[in-house]
């Protein structure tokens, strides 16, 4: 394929085939995502340990969070993963760029909705309620020191996740511009696919944050 004259757009000469280039790109992205798994993993590991050491405090702290907002945001992110997957699929089969841009922008809207809900209904209310350690801490209920520790985990974990969401929105903006400039075809859509891996990864992190921070240990009366 490469030996015969014209290269397809986006095809780098060091690869034998377009398929090989795609596999190399995917592998490289996964190596990065593995470092991200271990990056978030450090927080997860310390969360597990401190939860075991201060179990009652973590349950009390968890009950300060509102499941309805956590669940709504989980639904929003799952929707955004679907729209991202569809955007890539339509690029794969060579649909018009308008259709790809539509799904990309829908993904961005859902991502922004996630951040908006998080800011307005969770972090802002946490600030008003005085449960942000170091910023506005007015909690005086049971297990106060341990609850403060839980809230530190909550803000570091959701904050780091939100930072990844912001980065994802930046990446999606670049993708929209690239798509509008006809950079992609059914033969070359690597930036879309690789950014998709990142977006889905951020979704997975949230799935675990929702379970660990909001749900674990139960929310039933007397839990």
């Amino acid at each position: 394929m490469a030996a015969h004259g014209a290269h397809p757009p986006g095809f780098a000469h060091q690869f034998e085939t377009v398929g090989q280039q795609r596999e190399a790109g995917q592998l490289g992205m996964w190596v990065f995502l593995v470092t991200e798994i271990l990056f978030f993993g450090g927080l997860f590991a310390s969360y597990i340990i401190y939860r075991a050491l201060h179990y009652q405090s973590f349950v009390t702290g968890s009950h300060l969070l509102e499941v309805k907002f956590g669940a709504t945001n989980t639904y929003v992110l799952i929707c955004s993963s679907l729209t991202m997957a569809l955007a890539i699929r339509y690029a794969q089969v060579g649909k018009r760029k308008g259709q790809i841009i539509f799904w990309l922008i829908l993904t961005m809207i859902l991502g922004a909705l996630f951040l908006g809900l998080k800011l307005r209904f969770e972090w802002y209310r946490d600030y008003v309620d005085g449960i942000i350690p170091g910023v506005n801490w007015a909690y005086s209920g049971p297990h106060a020191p341990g609850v403060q520790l839980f809230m530190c985990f909550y803000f570091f974990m959701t904050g780091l996740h939100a930072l990844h969401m912001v980065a994802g929105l930046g990446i999606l903006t670049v993708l929209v511009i690239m798509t509008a400039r006809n950079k992609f075809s059914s033969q070359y859509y690597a930036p879309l696919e690789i950014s998709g891996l990142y977006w889905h990864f951020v979704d997975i992190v949230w799935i675990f944050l929702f379970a660990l921070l909001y749900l674990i240990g139960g929310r039933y009366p007397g839990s």
Partner: protein
Amino acid sequence: MSDHSEQSGHIGHVVPVRTYVLVFLALMAGTALTTAAAYTDLGRWNTVVALAIAVTKMMLVVLFFMHVKYATGLTRIVILAGFFWLGIMVTLSCSDELTRRWEIVPQGWQMIVPLFSRLF
């Protein structure tokens, strides 16, 4: 895999929209299920159920949305290695932190061998 690409004229595996929608519906149902389970008294199983559903949802996203079901063996091994190392980090950290305790040194020993008590 590359044979498939050349035959169909596409690069990589094209997943049908139907599959994506089914995975999406399963993820939405999983979220509803895990939320409902949290409000049910399952004793110590609440934690297990929450994590099991989260892992199932992760597998669905990884296999279908992230195309790992159609990826090469090399990519899969890299991903498994990542999770294996995460397992090492969590297990060794827990086995260290959760087994630490202050040893009670008998009074007499402290007086006889002061260094001994400093070791613990």
